[in-house]
């Protein structure tokens, strides 16, 4: 059974969700990943949304944005953005998903400025809740398309803090959250070294190889000793993903 990179990204993301965990979800692929996890290995996971929503189960039909009425009806709680972010700052949120325009070897994300922020080449939309999730969640997972120009040795601007310049940078700057635990791209999957906190390749998606992934990475990429193909998407997983995205708006 064939599937798209995005479908595999959703499935890989879902596998990062533990049962009973509090997950800061957000839009697009993470929303599908949350729906998948709930219907497979994490039935007791809870989803948080920055518009003020806590949901036990995803909306019956996948909303385009987190504020679409179907995402509010049937919520466990509909409160203020501040009260949701407060759960992050209280240290209660186990994991959050973040995307980015640029990432570097330590998992720092830039969604603000390409080039010098004083005279930007490109003005990106900004943090949204990304900077808060990256700062405060117990761990976070990065989901983004992989292209060499997006995978930088050093990002121009840190919007969402990863591991800074590595090692105990987060502790030194006073960040309480644990930082990025995984990086899921259109080509591969990365984790972060427990000591150096540098991203390393753990698996490549179908049709990819260590070399093809390295070719789309803007730094001298470290590779796991046991690197191999990303675990296949199962038939059951794909059926759920497709039932949540029948038009393939997100995953095609």
């Amino acid at each position, binding site marked *: 059974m064939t599937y798209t990179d995005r479908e595999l990204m959703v499935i890989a993301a879902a596998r990062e969700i533990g049962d009973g965990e509090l997950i800061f979800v957000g839009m697009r692929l993470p929303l599908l990943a949350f729906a998948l996890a709930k219907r497979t290995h994490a039935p007791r996971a809870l989803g948080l949304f920055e518009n003020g929503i806590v949901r036990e189960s995803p909306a019956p039909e996948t909303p385009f944005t987190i504020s*679409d009425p179907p995402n509010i009806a049937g919520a466990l709680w509909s409160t203020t953005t501040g009260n949701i972010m407060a759960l992050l700052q209280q240290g209660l949120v186990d994991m959050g998903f973040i995307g980015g325009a640029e990432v570097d070897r330590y998992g720092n994300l830039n969604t603000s400025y390409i080039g010098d922020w004083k005279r930007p080449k490109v003005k*990106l939309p*900004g943090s949204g809740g990304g900077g808060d999730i990256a700062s*405060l969640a117990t761990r976070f997972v990065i989901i983004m398309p992989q292209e060499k120009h997006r995978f930088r040795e050093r990002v121009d601007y*840190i919007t969402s803090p990863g591991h800074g310049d590595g090692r105990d940078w987060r502790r030194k700057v006073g960040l309480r959250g644990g930082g990025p635990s995984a990086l899921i791209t259109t080509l591969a999957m990365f984790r972060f070294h427990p000591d150096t906190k540098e991203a390393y390749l753990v698996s490549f998606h179908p049709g990819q190889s260590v070399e093809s992934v390295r070719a789309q990475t803007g730094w001298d990429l470290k590779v796991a000793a046991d690197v191999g193909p990303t675990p296949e998407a199962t038939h059951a997983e794909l059926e759920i993903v497709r039932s949540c995205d029948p038009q393939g708006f997100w995953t095609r």
Partner: protein
Amino acid sequence: MNRERAVKSYPGRPDCVPARPRSILGFVSKLTSLKDAVARFVPDGASVCLGTGLEAVIPFAAGHEIIRQGKRDLTLIGPISDMLFDQLIGAGCCRKVVAAWVGNVIAGLGHNYRRAAERGVPHPIEVEDHSNFTLALGLLAGSLGAPYIPTRSLLGTGILESNRSLKLATDPWSGEPVVLVPAIVPDVSIVHVQRSDAEGNCHLWGTLGVSREAALAARAVIVIAEEIRPREQILADPNLVLVPSLKVAAVVHEPWGALPSPCQGFYGRDHDFFMRYHEESRSPEGFRAWLDKWVLGVPDWKGFLDLLGTETLERLRVKEHHLSDPLDYGAR
């Protein structure tokens, strides 16, 4: 004239004790047209908070009226603002943006925002970068009349560098670093709600975002309501009242006034409209054409709805109603 004072714009960091909107107090009807409300309470140079419900209840009707009236030098304050800030920036109404995210949520980048920030087209804008949490905390501080609120978010980020309004400090108890977020006090907050009475006692439910903090922090509030209800019906649930009516400067009855964004219990999101805007606003000419058609080419919101067409409204209208259990406020 007193009213003007209530929405007078303050240079630099807003003072966190708002001017008392004296003339706003009192129990006259504040029902007015959107035209009058914008003309009187959104002066050039004002700081205006709108889009407080994140992707929902965005006051597009008010935004379009601000564009039609050619307001200038506004400071736009809001968390993610979706498409609205991009429109106001492209139309040349905006001098400064205080936001966590500016663009088109479903489609990504905001073309006008990029043109203004990268090339000064139609003119340069100042950007004050926030996260959703720091923006919410700034408005919360404003609503409390507190000078600032500390947070542990954004430590080590570029936002602390590019946003000079944030200060790095030390928690005197733990000795750990904290970020101080100064109070944000909009001259006027524009909130879209489901129902209000003529005085501005109003009910908002569904997605709240930062709507309550924004309304409480502001020197004056413009309420845009789907329905105007008798006072007794609103005050039958005083816990749900969003903001005390003494803060409300004007009440505008503008059904469908948040389209193409959704309003819980009334209508859904017009997804296609956001997608089409994203395509049509790629070039300055394309945006101009969009603006001429949807905003400048119509006299008012009614005109916008006519363009949108009754089929679209019918498609978006909520048809499955889910009513909450009433609350008993009985006292004896």
